[in-house]
């Protein structure tokens, strides 16, 4: 059993799974909340669409981290992690590198959905304030981006470490 490879794949898998879970849950909730508003006034669909899409970005960030990890560990290119003690440590590092995206992305997708839900209510009552609703929900995106950049930098630099 190549434990190093297993740990690296676990990290890559977590990055996309947790983010896709958070994004699908978030987008689903906001879309559900938006449907009574659209049923009442279909002209609000455009304004609500932005809010519905916002919690979906984390899924894409997670996918990027996963693909990048796979290109570094010999699945989609790069050097295969050896079945040695150093390989296990390297695999562990990939797992750690994926965690900021896996956890930060999941939390930010769910919390962003919550802000977007209040935005849906705001647009329902005061459509002219849609900009404020989108801006508020976008603030949470910053923390998904920070998680993404952290994971990206770590994944990119692991193979450069001398063992």
């Amino acid at each position, binding site marked *: 059993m190549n434990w190093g490879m297993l740990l690296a794949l676990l990290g890559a898998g977590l990055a996309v799974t947790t983010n896709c879970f958070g994004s699908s*849950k978030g987008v*689903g*909730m*906001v879309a*559900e*909340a*938006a*449907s*009574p*508003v659209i*049923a*009442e006034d279909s002209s609000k669909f455009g304004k609500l669409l932005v809010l519905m899409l916002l919690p979906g970005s984390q899924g894409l960030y997670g996918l990027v981290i996963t693909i990048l990890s796979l290109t570094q560990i010999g699945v989609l290119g790069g050097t295969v992690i050896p079945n040695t003690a150093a390989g296990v440590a390297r695999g562990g590092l990939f797992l750690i590198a994926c965690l900021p995206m896996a956890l930060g992305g999941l939390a930010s997708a*769910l*919390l962003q*959905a*919550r802000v977007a*839900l*209040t935005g*849906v*209510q705001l647009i*329902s*009552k005061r459509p002219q304030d849609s900009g404020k609703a989108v801006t508020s929900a976008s603030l949470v995106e910053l923390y998904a981006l920070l998680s993404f950049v952290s994971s990206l930098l770590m994944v990119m630099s692991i193979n450069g470490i001398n063992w």
Partner: protein
Amino acid sequence: MGPGNSKYAYAVSGAHVYEKSFFRRSDMDKLLAAPSYEAVVAMLQERGWTMPDDTRDSGKILDLEISRAWNWVTASAPDPDLFRSLVLRNDFHNLKAGIKCLLSDFEVDQEFTKPSVIDRSLMKEAIETHSFDKLPEPFSSLGAEVYDLLVRTGDGQMADILIDRKCLDEITKAANASGVDLLKNEMEIYTATCNIKTAFRAIKTGKDRAFLERALSDGNTTISRDQLLACADEEKKMESLLSYLSTTSYSSGTKYLSSSPAEYEKWVDDQMLALLLPTRHSPLGPEPVIGFYLGKEAEIKNIRIILAAKQNNLPLDVVSGRLRRLYE
């Protein structure tokens, strides 16, 4: 954001959309200022209220509207059973009214109230055929007991006590089973203030402790049943009751008990509504849906008062003072 709460995304958003058609205080003033009953009905119709064929019967108009709101709650909420404590009292009212109507040779369902948990045709059939076992518990055993009591003794007051007590017990049980704090607190106010009213009336009419023991429900956390019962043992019963109530969270409403029962009812309704407001804008969870339904009830109580005032040419200043706080 628990997984349970996230199920409410559609219901909460839908409730907020529906609430936009609620009457506000300024709308109530316009309804009050309307020249006639027909003008009020026309304003309700403009707001999207469904009208029965005969608009002269205000009860039918209001029944349709509250049923529409309740049907919306049960269709939109992911777990409609959670909200049953909001309408349980109507089922107990229907059981009581149905049996009394049957024994007085009236149509069994003529005093039925909407909405209800138990289908009204099932309730009617069970009462008409005396087959109370068709109803779920506790209605089956309670119905049989009350029917038997009325046939044997004709003691309407005892029948009322049995049903009202069971009603309050079941509401407390259903609210506690829901696990929703807002619902528990709302129903706590409702049942506690009903118990206070019962204790006050019983002591005022010289009833003894045994009567109170049968009439007062269990399970309140904001008042003590034992303390209320103890008041009946005192020499100065009423002073003792009022003195105890002044130490509870209901002290500000106690003054209305002796001056005006209608004012007391209004005070209770306003207390219940005030409790809804902090969770009104929650993006998820059952609280905004509970707020929506109780808010609709408050609106309907006000419209009922206004329609009755227009039908009976009551003075506007008196009517205005009776209007409940609104969910706004």
